[in-house]
């Protein structure tokens, strides 16, 4: 009997969905748009995270050493800095590596290479490139370096300059802006989610309002609340499922065509200058499809079912 009961509920849910025709179609569009706002949030946060990571990666502190600073002392200092808790990584660029890198960069420019030859000896200092875990931690690292003895063991001057002071303003601003952007993004996301939920709930409530007389008739012929509610919840699940699929299709199209759109909008040069923003969406969509699928479909089905359940409850008190 239970099987028959559920079979009837599912069958009636499908039939109602189909017979509602235009109303179902309109509801699917509204639900798809609302679920798309979840997609906007997913992509927005992926884009924001990539952007922030890129900016963070571009921020660092460079310690430039004097030309005669002994390499062993530099490597010792590197080890000490690496042990600091706020340091993510320290990269050592020797004088020879700096020279090779310069030559490679300007290999096509004979004028510059000629100038380099005229200088004779290697003019490039060794550099320690320090990356902190968070932009706000650079000040602490710079303070540590300031307090460090700048002489090597044999008493020669070792550190020529630390570029934190030149970049201090930008680093400090980033340290303040990034948490604010993250916080603002969270608030925006919460508002968008609430608005989407309200829209979905009201759309389904309108459809069920349209059936309120039928619900009272069902009550009067002795149907139980669960038997009346079942097909409506089933239709709600269908609205959620179909609009979830439509949303995934829309997001997929957006993700894979966003590269073209960005190139068209920003121009080739612009996209090269800001190469970080191209391919973010398509790569993110491919890599995280399982997660996106679960969020969109889960939200659609759960919201569809809960909205229907609550909306019908209103009319069951006959």
């Amino acid at each position: 009997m239970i099987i028959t009961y559920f079979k009837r509920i599912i069958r009636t849910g499908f039939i109602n969905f189909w017979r509602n025709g235009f109303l179902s179609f309109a509801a699917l569009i509204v639900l798809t748009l609302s679920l798309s706002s979840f997609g906007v949030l997913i992509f927005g946060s992926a884009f924001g995270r990539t952007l922030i990571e890129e900016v963070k990666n571009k921020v660092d502190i460079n310690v430039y050493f004097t030309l005669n600073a002994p390499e062993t002392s530099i490597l010792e200092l590197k080890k000490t800095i690496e042990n600091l808790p706020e340091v993510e990584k320290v990269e050592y660029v020797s004088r020879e590596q700096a020279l090779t890198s310069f030559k490679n960069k300007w290999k096509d420019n004979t004028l510059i290479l000629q100038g380099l030859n005229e200088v004779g000896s290697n003019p490039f200092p060794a550099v320690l490139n320090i990356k902190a875990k968070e932009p706000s931690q650079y000040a602490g690292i710079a303070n540590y370096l300031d307090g460090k003895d700048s002489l090597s063991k044999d008493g020669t001057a070792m550190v020529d300059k630390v570029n934190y002071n030149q970049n201090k303003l930008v680093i400090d601003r980033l340290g303040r802006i990034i948490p604010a952007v993250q916080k603002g993004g969270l608030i925006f996301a919460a508002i968008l989610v609430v608005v989407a939920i309200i829209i979905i709930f009201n759309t389904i409530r309108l459809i069920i309002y349209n059936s309120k007389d039928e619900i009272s008739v069902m009550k009067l012929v002795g149907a139980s609340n669960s038997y009346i509610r079942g097909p409506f919840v089933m239709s709600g699940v269908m609205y959620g499922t179909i609009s979830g699929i439509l949303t995934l299709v829309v997001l997929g199209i957006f993700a894979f065509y966003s590269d073209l759109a960005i190139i068209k909008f920003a121009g080739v040069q612009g996209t090269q200058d800001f190469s970080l923003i191209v391919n973010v969406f398509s790569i993110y969509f491919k890599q995280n499809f399982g997660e996106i699928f679960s969020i969109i479909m889960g939200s659609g089905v759960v919201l569809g079912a809960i909205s229907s359940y609550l909306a019908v409850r209103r009319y069951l008190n006959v």
Partner: protein
Amino acid sequence: MPMIYFDKVTRVYPDESIALDSVSFTVEPKEFVTIVGHSGAGKTTLMKMLIAEDRPTQGSIFFESKNIHKLKKKEMNKLRRRIGTVFQDFRLIRDKTAYENIAFAMEASGKTDKEIASDVPYVLDLVNLGDKMWNFPHQMSGGEKQRVAIARAIVNQPDIIIADEPTGNLDPINIIEIVKIIKKINEMGTTVLLTTHNKEVVDRVGGRVLTMEKGKIIRDDKAGKYIL
């Protein structure tokens, strides 16, 4: 033991208007009771009380000695399955065909698919609608809709049929048709409680007539008189 017992039932609406004023009467099993009265006399309110669509402000209504308004939800559903209801405005489910409207009442009663498949065409034939089985309400005339509503009311073989102005929206030919069907149902042993303000209906039905005015029962005639 009476099947239905109204014990000093009063219904006062929030705007202070009195729909029923200390109404008391009984209905015996297999009886055909017609309730007559002008619009606003309280006939529909009285019917709504019986199916617990409305609640009395004072007094009690008993169905086989059980107070209807003290029943739990499940018991109420069971009771409603024992009462077949016919309304003036048909109250069919608009997105369901004639067959599905009747089948729904059977499904609600827990009938099997086999029973539904055999009983629904049978009752539709009884009300001469065998050929309109798959029509939706909007594809049927008023008389046809009312016959579907009657088929739905009788399909679970209820103990009582409550018909609230079942001929109110119908033309004279359909009125005769519907009265014939309801009389036949009563002759087969089902109690019928019918409201109307149509003299011809009362004359055709005969039997006991309760006359209502301003929320009160002012006459209770055994001989089927329509005096207003």
